[in-house]
């Protein structure tokens, strides 16, 4: 059984996820196609094996949530929290992503061909996010580690309270958040951006990107921080 197809118009979500947890983890299936997702929430959450899942259409909240190892593609758009807390593997949204895309990710690669909503990469703990379009306000809020490439514009308060994550932005940044600053791009940064764009299948010139990282002024409580905490 190399390939399986689930029609969510006919099959309960629990059946699909239980199948992915048991049969795919046991190596009895390599590819799963999900049709008629129609915005259903929690499709393909908690996968723990290198299975390929294609969601044909739009997914609701938390598609590919807490993914490990699996490669999940959403051919349409994805709702809030796509690939949240992903540990490894790959999630690819061919349309747009809503709020909190890649929230608290620890690893893996999240690719969003279109725009992402508010708080993309919030609380990022590792892994990489590549957004072909723009991201909404408060993206990368308190991002701790990992990398984010934004090929379009960034909204307000980008990288507010950043820790060690690094952001690369090609377009306009409406405003930076507290403790985030623009830094000079190095050759290593150019190579990083190129590698991430290649992995995402996107073509841009790395020299057009700006680097945003933490000024590390909020790492210790400080009376002179003027309420920036």
């Amino acid at each position, binding site marked *: 059984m190399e390939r399986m197809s689930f029609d969510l118009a006919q099959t309960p*979500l*629990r059946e699909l*996820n*239980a199948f992915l*947890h048991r049969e795919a983890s046991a190596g009895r299936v390599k590819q799963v196609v999900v049709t008629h997702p129609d915005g259903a*929430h*929690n499709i393909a*959450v*908690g996968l*723990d094996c290198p299975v390929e899942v294609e969601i044909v259409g739009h997914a*609701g*909240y*938390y598609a590919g*949530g*807490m993914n*490990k190892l699996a490669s999940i593609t959403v051919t349409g758009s994805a709702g*809030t*929290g796509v690939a*949240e*807390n992903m*540990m490894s593997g790959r999630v690819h949204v061919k349309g747009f992503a809503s*709020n*909190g895309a890649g*929230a*608290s990710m*620890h690893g893996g690669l999240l690719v969003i061909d279109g725009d992402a909503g508010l*708080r993309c990469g*919030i*609380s990022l*703990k*590792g892994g990489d996010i590549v957004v072909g379009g723009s991201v909404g306000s408060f993206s990368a*809020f*308190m991002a*701790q*580690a990992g990398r984010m490439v934004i090929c379009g514009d960034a909204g307000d308060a980008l990288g507010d*309270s950043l*820790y*060690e994550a690094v952001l690369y932005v090609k377009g306009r940044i409406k405003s930076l958040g507290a403790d985030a600053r623009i830094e000079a791009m190095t050759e290593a940064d150019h190579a990083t951006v190129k590698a991430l764009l290649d992995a995402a299948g996107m073509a841009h010139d790395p020299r057009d990107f700006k680097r945003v990282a933490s000024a590390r002024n*909020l*790492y*210790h*409580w*400080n*009376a*002179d921080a003027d309420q920036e*905490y």
Partner: protein
Amino acid sequence: MSSHDKPIAREASYGYDRQTLDYIRHAAAHGLYEIRGMGAKRALPNFDDLVFLGASLSRYPLEGYREKCSTKTVLGTRFASKPIELDIPITIAGMSFGSLSANVKEALGRAASEAGTSTTTGDGGMTEEERQSSKTLVYQCLPSRYGFNPDDVRRADAIEMVIGQGAKPGGGGMLLGQKVSARVAQMRTLPPGIDQRSACRHPDWTGPDDLAIKIQELRELTDWEKPIYVKVGATRTFNDVKLAVHAGADVVVVDGMQGGTAATQTCFIEHVGIPTLAAVRQAVDALEDLNMKGTVQLIVSGGIRSGPDVAKALAMGADAVSIGQGVLIALGCNHDSYFRNGAHHDATADYAALGTAPGYCHHCHTGKCPVGITTQDDALAQRLTPEVGARHLKNYLKTLTMELTTLARACGKQNVHHLEPEDLVALTVEAAAMARIPLAGTNWIPGASAI
């Protein structure tokens, strides 16, 4: 007597007493709010303001020492296929590795397992020590998501979605740099030694409708096996409990303002939230209003210290309680000495170095706990071994359970869960109003009925 010899007036100001003067001077000197550990220190209506009406002619007591009184407690019966079964209705509250040493986390697990109850992780994730030592472990999902991962979700026995905490509803946690050791930093993906701030809101959901979907995600991830708790700090408890039930909680945990913390702003600890006594009544009202009493279980925490406290919380409608500060005190918190290598060692000099003394310490945030509980310093952590800590905590839990069953028998109950509001009266008007328990000797519940 000349004017020079006139006695100095020493009339203290009520509004500007010594504490207030110290507060203003501290603020002027530092430009930062005070951060400390433990819970509210102000006087609040609490379970001491209620007493039991033991059996007499109108009620028949059980024989105090021999007749059976069940303490078995089952949590998570609403949706989970594997509910939590505990021997006692007294659980260990969520406290993080980071705020506590690894030795302490292991001690909590050992004692809880021996007593037949559960312990709970905290911000920063699950340590191997606590998983291995805990028969029943509740895994918290917090706004920071530090260390949160699907492998540990699956290894847990239940999941607790933390919305807030009684010591700081609406606020995020913090862990000062001196406690962010290399291991803590690695677990939380942070640079060692920084002052760590935790978010106050979850990163991937906002509001109860989103929470319902988030809970469904956790259920899908665990194939609907594990109970899901929702923990709220006590504020608008009636509405919050209803919304938690709406979102699909199996168990609701309500943490009153007496609940403790490892470190937060004093202004939060003393000025935000409502007392546990008021919160229990609101929580039970919400469950009854939804006809969910018995379907969704209620755990109450925040200032539960003794067997009578447990019994009163159960009588008011809780299914179980959760204890944090009492547990730490059982381990030796605020004790003048620590026990190591078969002998007691004086710790008063270490308290003095922190500017405090045994019985007054709330310096968990400093990481310099004189008795080795709230520290990541290797030398200090050796002051409390898992074996010694577990023994003391097991004794504490046994004592609470004995007191609980003694009181239940005196009220004629064969099961501690049969205790009921009718078994209680209030000693103060405030407690009567908050708990909606009649004032002793009357049928009066302020705000609910006439005298």
